[in-house]
């Protein structure tokens, strides 16, 4: 077991790669009464074309399958896994993203029994046609729920407008139609390919003894049989530089229009330190350009172009990345003009100074320290970074080394007008 100490943060991380390839990380947190355990596979909705384990040809599976698989993992021959966690006092959950599927629980009691339940249910698949059919009703309701959610439509619609080829443009849960094609056989095929321990990570954080826990997980894994690790072959399409659509308008039953300005990132093929630097640099840049201290924000808020719903964000993973500036607004076209002007004037005349950077940097360092209070944040963010070969605990030193020149580089990756899109949801009837 390797022990990694971060003196400035007063945190110690324990790590071991087990014989079957499973990566286990343990981070004890003093003073915490709960323990949060996640078991994550590097497999999400974008992994739709791949060579199944033991086969030679690429296949493309129905949309929504990673998420469907996540639902079905809880349903066992002997009943629902939630029942087992419930008896042991743990609150369990799972989520599927574009790139990951995560199973988790948090508990203040029976830590090892709960860990055993988690490891076992994720490593013992049980799918039948009957159970797969039955789940379609539940997932169809989940999909319809998102259909009625204007904020989700605004967010996801923007991604679809940005991406022409890359499968982030496919809804994580699929559609009511695509999930009908899913069979138990599909689920087994995806499971066998992506749920090998060598493609997975366990992260344990909170009230935990690292030695005991590592021994417990190691013993459990050694007692189970796994095939040899194999490299997973996935295929992703090439994404053009241009946005798929320049403008998208959707009518929904809302009171006020919702606006989203999307910027597709032009440089996403990278990993590790380089990726962390670009991720943080784009975030700092957005803070300076669109944050609450910016000229843009002050003017837009005073001119009634944005309101309390205003926010911006940058999502970045190997293979894709996009920034968004969103708000409810009565004046979508004026807001669009204000965003475009902000980007354009910076492109023509670089005005960001060392002082701007220093202030934004301080804010981000503070924000990072604050988020270390949340064991859920550490666990989820660490795993996401880890799958992109970045280290969460490098955030502060990386922030400290970022120069204005890095911001200039970062700006170039999102400032191309051809890669921009505008999404608006306007009041009206969907059926019209």
């Amino acid at each position, binding site marked *: 077991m390797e022990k990694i100490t971060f003196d*400035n*943060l007063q945190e110690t991380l324990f790590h071991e790669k087990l014989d079957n390839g499973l990566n286990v990380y343990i981070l004890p*947190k003093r*003073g*915490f*009464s*709960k323990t949060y355990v996640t078991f994550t596979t590097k497999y999400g909705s974008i992994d739709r074309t791949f060579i199944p384990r033991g086969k030679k040809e690429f296949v493309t599976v129905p949309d929504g399958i990673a998420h469907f698989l996540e639902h079905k993992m809880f*349903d066992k021959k002997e009943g*629902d896994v*939630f*029942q087992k*966690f*419930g*008896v042991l006092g*743990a*609150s*369990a959950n799972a989520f599927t993203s574009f790139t990951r599927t995560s199973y988790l629980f*948090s*508990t*203040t*009691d029976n830590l090892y029994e709960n860990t055993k339940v988690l490891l076992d249910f994720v490593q013992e698949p049980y799918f039948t046609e009957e159970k797969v059919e039955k*789940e*379609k*009703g*539940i*997932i169809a*309701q*989940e999909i*319809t*729920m998102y259909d*009625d*959610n204007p*904020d989700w439509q605004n967010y996801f619609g923007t991604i679809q407008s940005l991406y022409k080829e890359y499968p982030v443009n496919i809804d994580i849960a699929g559609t009511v139609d695509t999930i009908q094609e899913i069979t138990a056989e599909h689920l087994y095929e995806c499971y066998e390919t992506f749920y090998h321990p060598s493609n997975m990570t366990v992260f344990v954080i*909170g009230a935990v003894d690292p030695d005991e826990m590592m021994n417990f997980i190691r013993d459990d894994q050694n007692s189970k049989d796994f095939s040899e690790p194999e490299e997973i072959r996935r295929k992703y399409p090439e994404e053009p530089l241009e946005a798929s659509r320049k403008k998208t308008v959707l009518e*929904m*039953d*809302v*009171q*006020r229009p919702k606006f989203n300005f999307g910027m597709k990132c032009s440089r996403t093929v990278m990993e590790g330190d380089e990726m962390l630097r670009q991720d943080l640099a784009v975030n700092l840049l957005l803070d300076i350009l669109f*944050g*609450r*201290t*910016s000229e843009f924000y*002050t003017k837009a*808020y*005073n001119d*009634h172009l944005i*309101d*309390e719903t205003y926010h911006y964000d940058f999502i970045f993973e190997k293979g894709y990345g996009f920034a968004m500036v969103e708000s409810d607004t009565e004046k979508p076209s004026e807001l669009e003009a204000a965003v475009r002007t902000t980007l354009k004037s910076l492109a023509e005349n670089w005005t960001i100074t060392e002082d701007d950077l220093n202030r*934004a940097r*301080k*804010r981000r*360092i*503070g*924000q990072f*320290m*604050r988020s270390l*209070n949340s*064991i859920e944040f550490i666990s989820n963010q660490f795993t996401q970074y880890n799958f992109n070969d970045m280290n969460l605990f490098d955030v502060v030193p990386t922030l400290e080394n970022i120069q204005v020149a890095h911001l200039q580089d970062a700006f170039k990756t999102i400032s191309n007008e051809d890669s921009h899109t505008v999404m608006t949801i306007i009041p009206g009837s969907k*059926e019209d």
Partner: protein
Amino acid sequence: MFTKVELQKGVNLYIRKTEQFKTITMSIKWVAELDEKQAAYRAVLSNVLQDSNADYPKQSDLRKALDELYGTVFYMDAGKRGNSHIVSLNMECVNDEYLSTSGVFDEAMKMIRTIIFNPNFQDGTFDESIVNREKRTVIERIRSIYDDKGRYAHKRMLELMRPNDPASMSSSGTEKDVESITSATLLDTYKRMLDEDEIDIYVVGDIQETELAEKMKSMFGFTARDVTRKQYVQPATEVSETRQVFERQDMKQGKLQVGYSTPVSFFHPDYPKMQVTNGVLGGFAHSKLFMNVREKESMAYTVNSAYAAYYGIVYVMAGIDADLEEKAVKLIGEQIDAMQNGNITDLELDQTVALLTNSIRSAFDSARGQIEVYDQYKQLDEEFTADKWIAEWKAVSIEDVRQMASQIRLELIYLLSGREA
């Protein structure tokens, strides 16, 4: 769990020293009786106070100063609880220990003092342009509920069940009352809030308790005030018949809300029993609703129940295909019937108590959770601890749950669904 220091009559400081967090969290709460007009005034006032102050008359300058203090978090909000309206000032800053600097907390305290006692006055009152801008912001907040179908359905259920009552009042007031606000209204509201409200101040973090109490006394000039704490008990509701209300918006899914009344509210001795009862019904993923409506019948992705304890309301929420409304209502009714007949297993009870235990202990793993949970339960017991409350839950029997379930009355079935349904 908190050390209490009376700063002045009616102004109390609650401190919790802990090394659990890398930050220091502070929350100042102004508590007054809930009144729809005052709610509107106080909601706008909290926005105006959050915007700027005498030291930083421009929002962007205030935000820059906060960024310089390593992204110190500062925001104000308005909420309600029972028949109380609560304006909160919230601050969180990084503990100096983790920074290559010192004095961040002291600077943040000074800033908060200015925010409270030295607002951004022009000619002795609030700046009209800021007031107007924040009125608009609050109106937009009120209107935005319509766009969130689940929240909207819930709001409608409360309005139909308890019209003109604290249960259905918004903590931001009504659009009309917000519209009527002038700088003079806000000045009056500000003075009343500062001089008359009950004030609770919470601080959680690695701080010296006595030092902090002294500092607060010298820095914050709160005056003594007479505060009489009244326990709010919702007047009993006579349910003569169950009402059905169906409303339409353009949407695909149906949002079902089934409202029940219970005589057991927050200050009732049976409150912990009712919490367990709600948990057995629909609080968790092992609960009757989840197992029978979602898993067995595949009818819903979301189906759960909640207990609005102050208002004596238990309600079930489900996202369903609107055509299946009758079937869903029937299934939900069957779960209640089962409980009224004592059809509850030891397993269900044990799971529920275990998960309630987990949720309260987990809430204590954040500073804000510690503040909010204690702030609520201290109304019942100033010496509140999680362990004491967990013991209350553990003492609940199947017979207790049966009795609690037998006292609830179905009052309203509300469905929000698509126009074509």
